[in-house]
């Protein structure tokens, strides 16, 4: 064990196991960039009121702007991952930040709704897609023992920035009108560029693996390269597919409370402020859950996969309990269950990404995350209309919440079908196969790192 450690540290930023120093700077960069991507996306609702009035369009047409943005972010995630594999994560993130800012700056000059779709939706969405997955993968690559805590701290920015951005955006719109506010937001989004600049430029170690030595470029070669950058072979691996399916099921139910909890509380008879407070309380424990779960997972007492299953099941159960609690008419019970739900849903968020390297290995993590984002995007499109439909059919939200919680539990059950699920320690990470085997002999250190379990810390302590 002591043999490979010096070699790992001598390879500095390319290996895992840094767990400190520059890694925490990257966590800060992740914090800022995530807040500027998702926190910003969540607070765009304030602009929509202005758009409805200015462009005289329906609220539904305006809401397509954020749907397009989110869809673009998730759709372009594999592209971002592939570009990082091909080139440098630093360049990709900086470009993404520039595009995100550019989209918003152009949006400030929009004269019709289609302009907004193209700028705020497509261009900014493309930028966000190029930013999020590479940043997450880079942070994860820089940590081993503290990976989940790093992720938890990074993602806690989403909740915090939603709190901060709502009044800020309101102030900007009041002071500068929506055009000026969008211009300033574009400038704020440009702050992602320095976050990307903080990523250390990668040494040329990844590039040689991907290229078959002595090959001329031909159609098949190019296709194979592209598919290896996108990590398409992952789609044929059962563990990865199972996990992706589980996360997709999770996503169907995950967002339902965000959209319907306030309306459900109002319907149960509570006032506007009480309903809004329930949502805020859930949001606060969400932030807490992300950080606490990250810290707890890294203690190593349990496998990350088991913890993820635990939080997912609990979140599902609490979602199912939400309508029951409000039926009883007690406000205190509703708030309690919302707090618990918020905590569990935040807790599982930290872990969802951290489990990926367990299944596919650190080397393929970037592409795996990109594909995961793309596939799970379908779930978001399905979940909310489904719950809305159930509500329209049954007249209340009980069925929607039950189904949403059910999907989460179903996700856990799917996760249980992963190989080695019931063992107490993590199995060794899968190694790269196919044409990379040839190159392994060229990089003995790489082979050693691949063959040792990525979470030696966890495995060791669990024993």
């Amino acid at each position: 064990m002591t043999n490979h450690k010096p070699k790992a540290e001598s390879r500095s930023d390319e290996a895992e196991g840094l767990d400190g120093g520059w890694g925490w700077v990257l966590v800060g960069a992740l914090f800022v960039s995530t807040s500027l991507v998702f926190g910003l996306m969540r607070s765009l609702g304030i602009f929509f009121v202005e758009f409805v009035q200015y462009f005289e369009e329906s609220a539904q047409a305006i809401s397509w702007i954020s749907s397009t943005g989110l869809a673009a972010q998730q759709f372009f995630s594999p592209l971002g991952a592939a570009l990082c594999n091909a080139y440098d994560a630093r360049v990709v993130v900086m470009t993404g930040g520039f595009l995100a800012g550019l989209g918003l700056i152009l949006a400030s000059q929009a004269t019709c709704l289609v302009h907004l779709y193209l700028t705020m939706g497509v261009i900014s969405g493309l930028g966000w897609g190029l930013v999020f997955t590479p940043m997450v993968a880079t942070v994860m690559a820089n940590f081993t023992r503290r990976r989940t805590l790093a992720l938890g701290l990074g993602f806690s920015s989403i909740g915090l920035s939603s709190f901060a951005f709502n009044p800020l955006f309101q102030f900007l719109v009041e002071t500068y009108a929506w055009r000026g506010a969008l211009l300033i937001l574009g400038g704020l989004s440009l702050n992602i560029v320095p976050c990307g600049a903080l990523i250390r430029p990668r040494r040329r170690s990844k590039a040689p693996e991907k290229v078959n030595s002595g090959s001329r470029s031909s159609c098949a070669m190019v296709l194979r390269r592209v598919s290896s950058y996108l990590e398409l072979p992952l789609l044929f691996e059962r563990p990865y597919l199972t996990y992706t399916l589980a996360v997709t099921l999770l996503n169907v139910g995950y967002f339902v409370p965000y959209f319907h909890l306030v309306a459900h509380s109002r319907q149960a008879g509570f006032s506007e402020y009480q309903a809004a407070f329930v949502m805020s309380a859930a949001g606060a424990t969400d932030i807490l859950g992300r950080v606490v779960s990250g810290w707890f997972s890294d203690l190593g007492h349990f496998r990350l996969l088991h913890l993820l299953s635990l939080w997912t099941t609990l979140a599902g159960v609490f979602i199912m309990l939400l309508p029951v609690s409000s039926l009883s008419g007690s406000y205190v019970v509703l708030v309690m269950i919302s707090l618990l739900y918020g905590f569990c849903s935040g807790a599982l968020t930290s872990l969802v990404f951290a489990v990926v390297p367990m299944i596919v290995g650190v080397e393929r993590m970037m592409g795996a995350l990109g594909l995961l984002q793309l596939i799970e995007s379908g779930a978001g499109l399905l979940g909310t209309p489904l719950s809305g439909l159930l509500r329209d059919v049954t007249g209340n939200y009980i069925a929607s919440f039950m189904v949403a919680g059910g999907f989460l539990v179903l996700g856990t059950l799917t996760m249980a079908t992963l190989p080695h699920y019931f063992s107490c320690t993590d199995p060794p990470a899968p190694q790269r196969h196919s044409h990379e085997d040839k190159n392994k002999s060229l990089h003995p250190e790489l082979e050693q790192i691949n063959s040792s379990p990525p979470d030696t810390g966890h495995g060791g302590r669990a024993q």
Partner: protein
Amino acid sequence: MKLLWAISALLLSCWRANASTAPNIIADPPEVSNQTSAILTCNLTESNLPIKGSLWMHNGKLIESTKTTDSASHTALTLDKITHSSSGKYECVFLTEPEVKKTIEVKTLPHVFAYKHSEHGNEKDKGVMACVSHGYPLPTDWTWFKEVDGIQTPIINGTSDKYEIKSTPNKTTLTVNDLSMENDIGDYVCSGTNELGTNSDKIHLRVRSRLAALWPFLGIVAEVIILVTIIFIYEKRRKPDEVNDGSAPLKSNSTANHKDKNVRQRNSN
């Protein structure tokens, strides 16, 4: 002569027949204007039809609590506090075959209020201010004033391209085109008049210069450029050191590893 008698007798009997079958409702008071409270009463007279009950309607909607099935020919509705929301047309309905009803109008001053008391617009762009009114009767006239130093000057529609006023009985909008920062900032007053009187509300219009947001934006862009420059410079300065550290183990594995191994062993012990 006899024909004349016959015709007049026929007419008389017809009239009496009509009189005896046409019910009459006496409503008291016939109209309510500008009162803070009132009691509306309806008395059904000259009807020998059976009364199955009575109820009151407000603006075409049934008032549930007034529905009764007793056969009194007298019904009353008390309005404790008359505000714009309780004004409108009240109908007392007697449930006979066929139904008979009478309308009492409750009128108040118009309730005029603005959607937003503070509006903003961009220079050279347009600014839109809107006022709505509730109550009965709805205003027949809307006027807009611009208030400068306490003096209200009326704004007349159609005299120039600058102002456009669109009014419907319950809503009025004033659009100020080509906003200029010197002339158009200030308070605008919308006032609605109905037969009882006038009410008004005030809106403050703020005009922002087109370039107002540009300065913070440029500031942020400058900050981003400075940050990126600092990061790159910092890295260039560190790079020479890092290259030595990084490449040394790869090139001369033995020495560096031995050094590290010793460190490791000491720590693990």
